[in-house]
């Protein structure tokens, strides 16, 4: 087996055709017209607004836009939520484990850096709320799409690899001086 194949196998692969959230006992409601595509809009702007809203209300912090990157941004903590329905894609948020623990601590009303389990839980929930807020902002998406339960990945040297190869949008912010990025990958 060649080295390229080994490297591919070590990557974290996320297929963007996300399953609808919830269990087999989910309610019977279905979107009235799930095949109707949403109207085009400024996806990146709506993603940014949803992100800022979540951090201001649930984390209690205003994000700022970093003016310049003084060092390479190497995130080792990511959360993702799939969107499936009239729009298919993936919302993900990336930062460092230190920043994720700090976000968890802020959400829980503590000044101390939170525990790892809290960070995973909180970061996944932040991503969940961003994805939910994003689709709530766009006409036709709130009822036309389902979102998955969050998935959190942490550790060094992983790559999220989109099989959809669709449109990609990213917003970068600074949270208490630490960088985080929020991305939207749309199904091609």
């Amino acid at each position, binding site marked *: 087996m060649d080295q390229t194949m080994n490297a591919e196998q070590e990557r974290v692969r996320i297929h963007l055709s996300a399953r609808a959230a919830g269990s087999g*006992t989910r309610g019977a409601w279905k979107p009235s017209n799930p095949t109707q595509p949403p109207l085009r809009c400024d996806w990146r702007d709506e993603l940014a607004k949803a992100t800022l809203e979540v951090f201001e209300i649930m984390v209690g912090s205003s994000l700022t836009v970093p003016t310049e990157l003084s060092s390479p941004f190497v995130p080792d903590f990511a959360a993702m939520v799939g969107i499936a329905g009239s729009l298919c894609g993936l919302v993900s948020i990336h930062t460092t484990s230190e920043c994720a623990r700090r976000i968890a601590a802020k959400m829980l009303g503590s000044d101390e850096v939170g525990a790892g389990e809290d960070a995973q839980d909180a970061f996944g929930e932040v991503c969940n709320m961003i994805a939910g807020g994003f689709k709530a902002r766009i006409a036709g998406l*709130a009822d036309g799409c389902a979102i998955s339960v969050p998935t959190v990945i942490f550790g060094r040297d992983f790559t999220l690899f989109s099989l959809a190869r669709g449109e990609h949008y990213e917003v970068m912010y600074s949270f208490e001086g630490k960088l985080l990025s929020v991305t939207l990958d749309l199904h091609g």
Partner: protein
Amino acid sequence: MKQARVLIVDDSSVMRKIVGRSLRQAGLEVVQLLEASNGSEALTLAKENPLDLILSDINMPLMDGLEFVRQLRCIESAQQIPVIMITTEAGEGHVVQALTLGASGYIRKPFTPEQIKERVIPLLRG
């Protein structure tokens, strides 16, 4: 200050803590706080404990919040307990379905303590 025995249902433990804190910030004295991470666990707790208020997420593993409400309303002793859905699913279809199944109210995440106060406290008796 109103007192209440409360059940919070969410697969996120962080979110359960935040909701509990928001209730206290809203001026509610929580005399008993029960937590469940899915609808199935919540049903068991609701059958075994007298409750004044339930706050439930929708998207959860094993049994989601909508199915939880539907089954809860089939339990005679639980038919009058106010159930507020707290969820990222903000579509009108979800709201209508939740209310049709027996939910008493709906709050979209992210939420403020003020929203909890406005929509939860009036539903409590006493």
